[in-house]
């Protein structure tokens, strides 16, 4: 067969494959981009009187994200409440990620250093909460942290405190709840990274005068970094949009972006603002992801073998 005939056959093959994949690609595109497009369009419309939207093009929803219009003189001022919610969401999500790492790293290390036959069992135990409904898990945490709950009762019985600590309906409760709910998402990628780690490097580190802390910081953490990045993203992103956990454990007051968006589509009856907020959330997530991935690449991206 001549070279041109060969390449023609190759071209025909590629064209046929594309044709075969087209229906699936169209469905994927419509399914992924379609709803997003609806949200984008809605964010530029006027809220309807009871719900839904009126087809009047306006930037109002986008303005309302950061500014509130004074009822009396129609001037704009910064919407402090909104900024507080944004800030709380980002702060709590970062703290959740940190907490998940602090608990997840030793856990993943523990599992990865067990006998190979035992690891499956340990991983299964880690994922068990996943088989339970999120709402039920959240109420379980509520039962632990409430004033007459497990934690306070135990502390009072032990005589550590005399009156219950108010944890429920504070940011701390939301943090505890989210860290508990998202912990497996940190443990699994960390485990995968530590499992690939060559433990002989630890001896090489000690041999070259590194202390345990230096071995951890200079050798282990840089090498398992891809796992840390993956785990952090998997925890941070859903934390930022968390809805059930802050609702149940934070009470009505300590809202996060997720609850705030829900409010706009429910009682607030401001679908355009809800849509605009959803877009803002998406942008924050994308920016955070980009920043993280770039930081990870800059400081010694590990060659994957």
């Amino acid at each position, binding site marked *: 067969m001549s070279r041109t005939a060969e390449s023609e056959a190759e071209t025909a093959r590629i064209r046929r494959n594309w044709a075969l994949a087209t229906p699936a690609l169209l469905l994927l595109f419509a399914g992924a981009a379609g709803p997003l497009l609806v949200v984008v369009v809605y964010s530029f419309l006027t809220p309807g009187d009871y719900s839904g939207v009126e087809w009047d093009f306006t930037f109002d929803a986008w303005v309302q994200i950061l500014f509130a219009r004074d009822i009396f003189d129609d001037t704009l001022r910064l919407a402090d409440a909104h900024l507080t919610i944004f800030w709380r969401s980002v702060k709590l999500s970062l703290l959740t990620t940190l907490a998940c790492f602090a608990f997840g790293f030793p856990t993943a290390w523990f599992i990865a250093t067990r006998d190979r036959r035992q690891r499956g069992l340990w991983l299964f135990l880690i994922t068990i909460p996943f088989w339970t409904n999120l709402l039920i898990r959240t109420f379980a945490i509520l039962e632990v942290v409430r004033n007459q709950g497990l934690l306070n009762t135990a502390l009072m019985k032990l005589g550590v405190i005399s009156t219950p600590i108010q944890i429920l309906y504070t940011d701390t409760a939301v943090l505890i709840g989210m860290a508990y709910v998202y912990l497996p998402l940190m443990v699994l990628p960390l485990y995968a990274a530590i499992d690939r780690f*060559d433990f*002989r*490097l630890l*001896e*090489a*580190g*000690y*041999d*070259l*005068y*590194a*202390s345990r802390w*230096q071995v951890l910081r*200079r*050798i282990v953490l*840089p*090498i398992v*970094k891809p796992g840390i990045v993956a785990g952090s993203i998997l925890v941070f992103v859903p934390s930022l949009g968390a809805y059930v956990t802050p609702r149940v454990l934070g009470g009505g007051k300590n809202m996060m972006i997720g609850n705030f968006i829900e409010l706009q589509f429910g009682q607030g009856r401001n679908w355009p603002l809800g849509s605009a907020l959803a877009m803002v959330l998406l942008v924050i997530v994308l920016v955070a992801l980009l920043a993280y991935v770039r930081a990870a690449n800059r400081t*010694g991206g*590990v*060659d994957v*073998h």
Partner: protein
Amino acid sequence: MDSSAAVEARHATKTYGQGSAAVTALDDVSVAIAKGEFFTLLGPSGCGKTTLLRLIAGFETPTSGQILLHGADITADPPNRRKVNTVFQSYALFPHLTVTQNVGFGLQMLGRPKAEVAATAAEMLALVRLEDFADRRVSQLSGGQQQRVALARALAPRPEVLLLDEPLSALDLKLRKQMQLELKRMQTETGITFVFVTHDQEEALTMSDRIGVMSGGRILQIGTPRDIYNDPTSRFVADFIGETNFIDARIEGGAAILPDGTRIDIASGDGQGRPAAGPATLTIRPEQVRLTDPGAGVPAQVRQCVYFGTDTHCHLALPGGETIVARLQNPPGGSVALTTGETVHIAFPPGALRVLEA
């Protein structure tokens, strides 16, 4: 023991597991390695040589006994407090660092100034001839180059003792030969005490000042390569180093008597631990077996001859039926002319024949 030793093990014993499942990896080993010496621990896998190395490095603590570095007891010190560095069998290079960063790691951990770390790293890379690869990642290097980086990394902090755990085993034959010479050169240039672990007897013979032959968790014999090869004190050492023949015999009145009554004269005043009378094993290297004129020596029948280029390997049956191998050098342009079934006469030069315990 010698107090000028660079590193010394005193009655070092290492047992893994407990009770009936206990395995003794190292059994009451005492050895003193002199400063500036190239010392090789040689033995088959599972003989305890790597365990001894790991005790010196500090990765394991002995069940009993002591490890001394320049006379100071370091048994309880963790590896990062011992002025000892290791070249690992797997190299264990840090994949996230460049070649230079790998080499400088030890000095950096010791808190040396940046300029000194950089200068020493460059100097070490020059020593192993890898100057052009300084900024590469280790995954971009060949096996032989990684080996050199491992060596430079371990040498950079100027350890008092360098431990090498079968560092050449992953290299191909040609590269291994070349690295053997380079290792010897570096050891001479740096003057650092090398403790080298290998199961390759040829490697041990070509590089070492002294060899400790190990088996079953014990050191059977310590000596120069020449001593170990020419004057093994046990059947195991004779068998493990090079090829050799074993002949069962009885010692009587300064001569060895073969089972069929043939008398062979042996050199008197042989080393300690050799039986002076009673059952014994005779050993002789194939290349030291000589043919002699009829009337002298021991008669033997040619069973088979195999041509090997420089020499011919002949299997010869002794009167008692035992077969020994003689490696006979071929004359220029020809080969040893022996035919199967022919009777020859073997001479055992007294210095070549060794008497061992049966």
